[in-house]
């Protein structure tokens, strides 16, 4: 905790605001900003130093929690599945953009849509929607849990992600699978979770083609992770060893965010 110190009469509030903005950047951005912080430190003295070291400690703990969760993750442990009677209808809409409105969801043309595959894979060929729809399907009724605390049960149908990764010849020793989306959202998950039997490339919600508001033409359903790790409107899937983070992760959400 930051001990209370008397603020500098002129620069105090402005620097506090500057430091607060730095607070929300990722640890990577944070390191990049280290020089800037040093300048702030010279100007404002202890107050910003304390804020920065607290922020470093919190980043350290978030990294530590990533490792703990990876260790705790049991590839055979399945998320609870529910009967049809427990499905939440309508399934709630939520977005990373503001205003939080389905009107702002991207419009994807199914005829021209292509899924790009990049990184450590054998086949980098694009996928059309017809090709994706032809893949073998599984259905799950699982609970989507948002980091905000709400949850909803949905019925998701699509191809097992491990099956899809096998078809593109993904290197399963790679560390990360990154999803880049048509609404400019990005997130990434660990390979162990990508290969989990319930991780699904989802094309249908409640037996209907995935509506625009819920991520047409596809979302990644990851019932072993929080909702923001379930990206919608996926346009590119990348396999690699380089940490790619994600949109909310840059604001301080824990990267692994396993359930």
């Amino acid at each position: 905790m930051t001990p209370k110190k008397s603020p500098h009469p002129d620069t105090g509030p402005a620097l506090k605001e500057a430091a607060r903005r730095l607070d929300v950047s990722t640890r990577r951005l944070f390191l990049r900003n280290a020089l800037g912080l040093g300048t702030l430190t010279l100007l404002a003295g202890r107050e910003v130093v304390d804020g920065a070291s607290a922020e470093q400690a919190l980043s350290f703990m978030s990294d530590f929690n990533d490792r703990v969760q990876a260790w705790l993750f049991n590839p055979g442990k399945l998320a609870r599945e529910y009967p049809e009677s427990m499905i939440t209808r309508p399934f709630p809409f939520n977005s990373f953009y503001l205003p939080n409105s389905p009107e702002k969801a991207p419009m994807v043309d199914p005829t021209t849509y292509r899924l790009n595959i990049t990184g450590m894979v054998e086949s980098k060929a694009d996928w059309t929607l017809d090709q994706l729809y032809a893949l073998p399907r599984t259905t799950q009724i699982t609970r989507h849990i948002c980091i905000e605390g709400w949850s909803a049960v949905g019925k998701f149908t699509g191809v097992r992600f491990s099956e899809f990764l096998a078809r593109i010849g993904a290197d399963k020793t790679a560390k990360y699978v990154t999803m880049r989306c048509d609404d400019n959202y990005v997130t990434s998950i660990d390979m162990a979770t990508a290969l989990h039997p319930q991780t699904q490339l989802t094309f249908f919600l409640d037996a209907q083609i995935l509506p625009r508001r819920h991520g047409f033409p596809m979302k990644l359903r990851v019932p072993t992770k929080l909702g923001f790790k379930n990206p919608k409107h996926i346009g590119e899937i990348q396999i690699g060893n380089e940490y790619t983070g994600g949109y909310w992760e840059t604001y301080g959400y824990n990267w692994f965010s396993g359930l």
Partner: protein
Amino acid sequence: MPQSTTLTVRSEALQKPSPPIHPLAVRITHWINAFAMIVMILSGWGIHNAYPTLPFAFPEWMTLGGSFPGALRWHFAAMWLLVINGGIYLAYGFLTDRFRRKLLPIWPRDVLRDALAAMSGKLDHEDFSTYNAVQHALYAGVIAAGVLAIITGLAIWKPVQLKEITSLFGDFDNARIMHFAAMCTIVLFLAVHVTMSLIVPKSLRAMIIGR
């Protein structure tokens, strides 16, 4: 030789100081717990505000973290301190038999009697080494609430990997409400506990320096 006898008696008195009211282990774990618990509560309020359980949000100045992601980071960092320190405290309490000696028995009739006596200002609060019946109930109760907060916390942190714990409370949504209820219980305890320690400052001193 009277002189030497006097010396022996004096050195014995020096070697056997009266034991502290609260052992050092209890004082250290108490204050670490106080810090960790306050961080958990204030950051928890910031998390609550993202999707309120109650029809209100806690004012932002009462929350810790500066933002929702900040509150989450504080919560998931301080949880380690709370659990490790709490584990040491519980192990100490059970292994040294302290819990049984200090907190038992808890008879509702005694608790009511002492509570009424306390409210009419007639409860003797001079000897801090033994607890009255209200203290038995409050301290045992808040330890139980703390354990419940941790168990419900695990239930909503890991509803897949630890789904057996989540199912103890029905499902995720219920476990989340129970987590909130555990927090409310602890906050109510704190209101009484902090008030009492300020009314009887010697009790505060005893928890800091042991006497």
